[in-house]
């Protein structure tokens, strides 16, 4: 039996590496083509906006790069299980420990280094080029779109989003309507706890934090509806904190904005002046109101020392 095993080891071996390489290459090409052209266009968050399309491209590139690596492992496993498995009656140990294989090591280290560094450069470019990739950039955004974006303020509070349009009298509404092909600047803030404004199909996600203006940019590229969800666990009705926005043509947006501005004019009058954040301590007249009403308010520490009777 030992002789038979020795004879197998000594027998001329097929070029296993080459076989594995060809199987891997063919599979990788097929899978990458399928990922790019068949699966890719359906990957979230879609291509409704510049930031969404950019994120979809990111996912496609990552999948196309990762698939061959994953396939190499699977093909090697499959090949090893098929050709190098222990045969019936073969109780011999395998050959002694392999040494060297410097070429394989060089190839492996070079390829993985190129992949990682390439993705690092790609990721950085993708973060910068679509003006922050739809993510909240804080109050002083580093990457801005060209042109003058439409300002839309997102006000989060437990448990509802409202939206203010400073270009239309500072009106506030629960409807989020955007014009197509125009850059939009979301100014995201909160009136209470931390929320997160996530316009899913637009590829926009920015934390909403009290007393902070978190800026995110996008440019809608197609008309249609999108979903807005709070993406930060924010209390009892967090799961119900969602609504639906829509992207419409520029004339339709203008028409909606002007008619809504007129309709909401009485409401707008009682709103505080448009600001990037709304701290009760900075709203004119509110402390005076507290004094006159003799109320203690139920602010639970939100209102500052200029307010009487903090509970």
């Amino acid at each position, binding site marked *: 039996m030992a002789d038979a095993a020795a004879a197998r080891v000594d027998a001329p071996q097929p070029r296993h590496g080459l076989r594995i390489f060809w199987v891997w290459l063919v599979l990788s090409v097929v899978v990458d083509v399928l990922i790019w052209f068949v699966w890719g266009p359906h990957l979230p968050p879609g291509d409704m906006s510049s930031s969404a399309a950019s994120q979809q491209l990111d996912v496609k590139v990552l999948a196309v790069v990762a698939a061959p690596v994953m396939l190499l492992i699977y093909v090697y496993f499959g090949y090893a299980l098929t050709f190098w498995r222990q045969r019936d009656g073969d109780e011999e140990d395998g050959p002694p420990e392999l040494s060297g294989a410097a070429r394989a090591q060089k190839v492996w280290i070079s390829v993985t280094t190129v992949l990682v560094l390439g993705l690092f450069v790609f990721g950085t470019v993708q973060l910068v080029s679509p003006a922050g990739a739809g993510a909240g950039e804080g109050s002083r955004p580093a990457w801005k779109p060209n042109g003058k974006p439409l300002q839309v303020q997102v006000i989060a509070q437990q448990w509802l989003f409202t939206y203010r349009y400073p270009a239309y009298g500072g009106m506030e509404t629960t409807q989020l309507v955007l014009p197509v092909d125009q850059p939009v600047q979301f100014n995201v803030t909160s009136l209470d706890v931390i929320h997160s404004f996530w316009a899913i199909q637009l590829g926009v996600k920015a934390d909403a934090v009290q007393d902070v203006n978190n800026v995110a940019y996008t440019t809608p590229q197609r008309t249609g509806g999108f979903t807005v969800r709070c993406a930060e666990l924010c209390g009892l009705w967090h799961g119900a904190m969602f609504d639906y926005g829509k992207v419409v043509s520029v004339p339709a947006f203008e028409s909606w904005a002007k008619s809504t501005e007129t309709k909401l004019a009485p*409401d707008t009058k*009682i709103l505080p002046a448009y600001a990037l954040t709304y701290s009760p301590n900075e709203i004119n007249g509110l402390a005076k109101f507290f004094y006159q*009403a*003799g109320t203690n308010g*139920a*602010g*639970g520490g939100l209102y500052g020392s200029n307010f009487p009777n903090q509970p």
Partner: protein
Amino acid sequence: MGRSEAVGEERDRLSLKARVGTLLGAIVAALALIVFVVAHFLLPVPATVSFTADHIQGHAVNMTIQADPVNDASSTPDWASYFVRDPHNGKWIRSTVWQLPAHTRINVTAYQYDSCGPLRNQYFGHVRGTVGSAIYVNGHSESLADSYRQCSVAHSFTVPQLGINVPLAGVPGSAKNPCAQAPCQLSDSHEVIKFSFVTPGPGEYRWQCFVPCGLASLDGNGHPMGTLGFMSGFLKVVTD
């Protein structure tokens, strides 16, 4: 290893009895924690008060509610809360889950006993989604409440999914006879707010107060604001 060291090690080891006891103790503690969470946080859903049992199709439903600065729960007596009058026996029940018939006009009379405070967002000072887009505060029609300049809001009845928002007028801080025990009585200082809305098709619609009235909780957002049965609940709309 010397014999004495081995004996010492043997002595340091926990006996089987002690190990089993520790394990059982840990299991019992974990079970107790689960039972506490379930019993304390998940099970205490307020009772559903039904307005459908005796409802005649095509007729309006009359509902009477009150918003109080206190409540009748022994563990949290200082939480603001809503009560609803049971249509069958006229008793006040601290519940925010109300079963209503679909596609029906609901006439609401709300007694508001709490003191006023500013809305966190003045957007909720505007009456929306009621019949005629108006409410009647002590008999006077109103559609807007400026809570930053007047003592005009204490709580709100807001159903986001249905676009309904009713700011409930607050009792002035100088009121002589503030309510101190729930359910409040008509002899206590109060405001009367009347409005109507029409229920949609069957479904569960959450409602809440949008005034941060969680007294003494962080930013006024916790406690009654974050607990079913106090300042938020469901409209369970069912087929008649």
